[in-house]
């Protein structure tokens, strides 16, 4: 189930919240587990056992680690099991076909791939459970004894399928004991509605420009339209992803949890280094904490440090998708981060205009690497961007999307927060804004299922 659907908004969410609020304190986590498992199984029943296995493996492994603290061997074996299980599942479901295809291409073999749809959110929850066991292993946190609490952590529906990546230590206290108060719920609803609006009103809307550009075919478009298209995609991916995260954070608050922030106006960054402190924060901090620092971080020789950074960014890229373009996308950032680390950063921080131009320009390019999986198509597209092809097609699309672009730009900078901070003091105005966003979002969701059957009349 996705958040941006009628069935979620007008069935799952109200019923879940109703039961959750009415349930006695001791039962709340159990309610969450049941509802979340239902949420997860909807349309993907076959992956229900995988979710159960995920819960059981890390629950048992972590308890075993804790009970055998002094026996290093057992701890290491347990840690190994968790790593093997979590990464193994991730690799099996997400990357098997990628490796099969590449092995076939390299050796001329004819191995056949697997025909499985990717279990919903597997990239996210494997990282969450893994971080839990690692933290227990490191002694950073105590193992959770109550299996219901632990299951609630793993399956919690708000962040299950698209983040933020919530570590156990982020919410361990709330899992055991949480007070739900009205102002937290109030804030949660506000964030949820903003998230919904970001996803449905901005991301989907501007994303259709990119869809149309793809439909036209990269070889058939003019250079201005190519730029408009990739700009639209840049906004789409930000609003889609951050909108989803915001909905998750909002629902977390409605349930009494405080999830970590995941996006902080990434497009206002003055350097790529800063961009990654503002973009998908929980993912980059996960990689820092569980990959970069264990590799030695920057407390090693220079070449080793660069090697560590290389590993982290190749992995970050690969995490985003089982295709070479994502690896390339990650390494693109590796190059920029190294350049910035060696000399560029201090100049960027001093500059007020050029640094933004630099970040925006190269970010937009990075999204081209991200969006276009096929390398020959990518080549055509990049050629369109940089060798001028004239045409009038962009006029039509600019005319159609001009206001949407303005709104997207406005909502990408802190100005929107400043403005909202002022107007929300008047309750009526605040309610009106939220009501409009919610209602218009619903209208777009209903329209997305609108399917007038005309062609049979043709």
């Amino acid at each position, binding site marked *: 189930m996705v958040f941006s659907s009628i069935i979620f908004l007008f069935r799952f969410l*109200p019923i879940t919240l109703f039961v959750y609020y009415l349930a006695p304190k001791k039962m709340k986590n159990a309610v969450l587990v049941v509802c979340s498992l239902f949420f997860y199984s909807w349309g993907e029943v076959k992956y229900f056992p995988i979710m159960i296995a995920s819960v059981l493996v890390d629950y048992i492994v972590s308890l075993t680690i804790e009970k055998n603290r002094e026996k290093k061997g057992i701890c290491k074996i347990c840690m190994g099991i968790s790593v093997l299980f979590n990464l193994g599942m991730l690799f099996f479901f997400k990357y098997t076909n990628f490796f099969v295809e590449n092995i076939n291409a390299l050796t001329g073999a004819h191995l056949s791939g697997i025909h499985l749809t990717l279990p919903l959110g597997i990239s996210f929850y494997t990282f969450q459970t893994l971080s839990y066991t690692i933290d227990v292993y490191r002694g950073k946190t105590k193992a959770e004894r109550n299996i219901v609490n632990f299951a609630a952590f793993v399956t919690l529906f708000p962040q299950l399928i698209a983040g933020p990546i919530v570590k156990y230590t982020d919410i361990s206290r709330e899992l055991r004991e949480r007070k739900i108060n009205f102002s937290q719920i109030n804030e949660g609803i506000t964030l949820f509605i903003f998230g919904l609006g970001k996803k449905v009103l901005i991301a989907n809307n501007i994303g259709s420009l990119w869809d149309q550009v793809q439909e036209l075919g990269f070889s058939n478009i003019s250079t201005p339209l190519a730029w408009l298209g990739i700009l639209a995609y840049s906004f789409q991916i930000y609003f889609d992803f951050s909108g989803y995260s915001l909905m998750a954070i909002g629902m977390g608050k409605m349930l009494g949890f405080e999830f970590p922030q995941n996006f902080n106006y990434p497009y206002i960054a003055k350097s790529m280094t800063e961009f990654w402190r503002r973009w998908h924060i929980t993912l980059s901090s996960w990689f820092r904490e569980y990959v970069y620092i264990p590799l030695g971080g920057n407390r090693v020789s220079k070449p080793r440090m660069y090697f560590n950074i290389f590993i982290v960014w190749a992995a970050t890229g690969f995490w985003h998708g089982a295709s070479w373009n994502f690896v390339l996308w990650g390494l693109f950032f590796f190059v920029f981060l190294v350049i910035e680390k060696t000399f560029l950063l201090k100049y960027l921080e001093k500059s007020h205009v050029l640094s933004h131009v630099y970040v925006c320009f190269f970010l937009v390019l990075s999204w081209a690497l991200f969006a276009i999986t096929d390398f020959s198509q990518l080549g055509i597209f990049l050629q369109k961007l940089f060798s001028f092809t004239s045409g*009038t097609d962009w006029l*039509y699309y600019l005319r159609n999307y001009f206001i949407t672009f303005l709104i997207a730009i406005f909502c990408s900078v802190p100005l929107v927060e400043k403005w909202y901070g002022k107007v929300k003091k008047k309750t009526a105005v605040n309610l009106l804004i939220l009501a409009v966003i919610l209602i218009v979002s619903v209208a*777009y969701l209903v*329209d997305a*299922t609108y399917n007038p059957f*005309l*062609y*049979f009349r043709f």
Partner: protein
Amino acid sequence: MKKILKFPLIWLFFLFLFGYMIFDVSQYNKTFSELENRELAQRPTFTLSSFYNNKFSPKYESYINDQFVLRDQWITLKSLSESLLGKIENNGIMYGENGYMFQHYTSADMERIETNTRFVNEFIEMYPDLNVCMGIIPNSYMVYPEKVPLGAGQVDQAALTQQIYSNLHPSVQTLDFLAPLQEKKDEYIFYRTDHHWTTLGAYYGYSFFCSSKGWGPVSLDAIDKTVVSDFYGTYFSKTKAHNAVADTLTYYHIPVTQVLVDGTEKNGLYDLEKFQQRDKYAAFLWGNNGITVIKSENNLRKEEGKTSRILVIKDSYGNSFSPFLTYQYDEVYVVDLRSIPVKMSEFLAENSFDDVLILYNFMNFSSDTNLAKLRY
């Protein structure tokens, strides 16, 4: 509990979600949407196996979506919001000048065009004795390019039609409708809110067909007509533009002696009830039926002791067109390949024709998958 009153957002939000859910659940299910012109999904029956096979959940979701209370109004709200965002397109339909709507049509399915052209050629080779004529009718944006928004990048149907014609078997006579229609563009020959040509447009198409044969068409002044107002067509159904200008629809009282639709005798050429409903164009020839036979005494070229016949193989553009042919033929047979109840070969073995006219609008010729039935 008093505290919650301090947080109007909380109770308004839950009132909205919860209240709307209950409102939604309490409504009776509709079976058909006139606006969408299709059956609406009904509640699927739950079985463990359908749930396990992931068949239940998508069906249930489409049921929820289709039956969502005030669905039409929500869709209108989205359309309004798109207009407020300054968009001149909604759900794939563009708003042109003077209230004209056009489908945003940036690429034609070249493979389908080739396949369909091949099917027509195979048909001609199968029946070398037939006198076949082929006409691809351009869609409205080709006739009114100046009303199409700048830079829309519409498919050049003129060039593609020429390409199709040049690939056709040389024995086929082709009809180039674009020029004669453009000549009459100042008249009301295409609907603004619908994808069809108007009856007047169909008449000019018919006149062009006649002149290609060297005959004079019937004069429209000679026939009584009725004008139906408030016609909002298929383009409107897609966009639901708040400022759409209604079309008018005209039908001519062409005298007939018999109309047979798939073997059933009908009262006249038009399903008059349909003129009262939303989908008014469906009144022509009672919609898209398999085999329609029109017999009349209108034939201007009447030869005593001989019954002349034409077979029209058509899409819905042919429905408003075919009745005019009664002034050139004693019997007009109209076949829609999408619903033809018998094999073409059986049909042609039983009936003989002086002329065969294959008549499709461009968008349909480049997408329809039923032309394969020409060979069966």
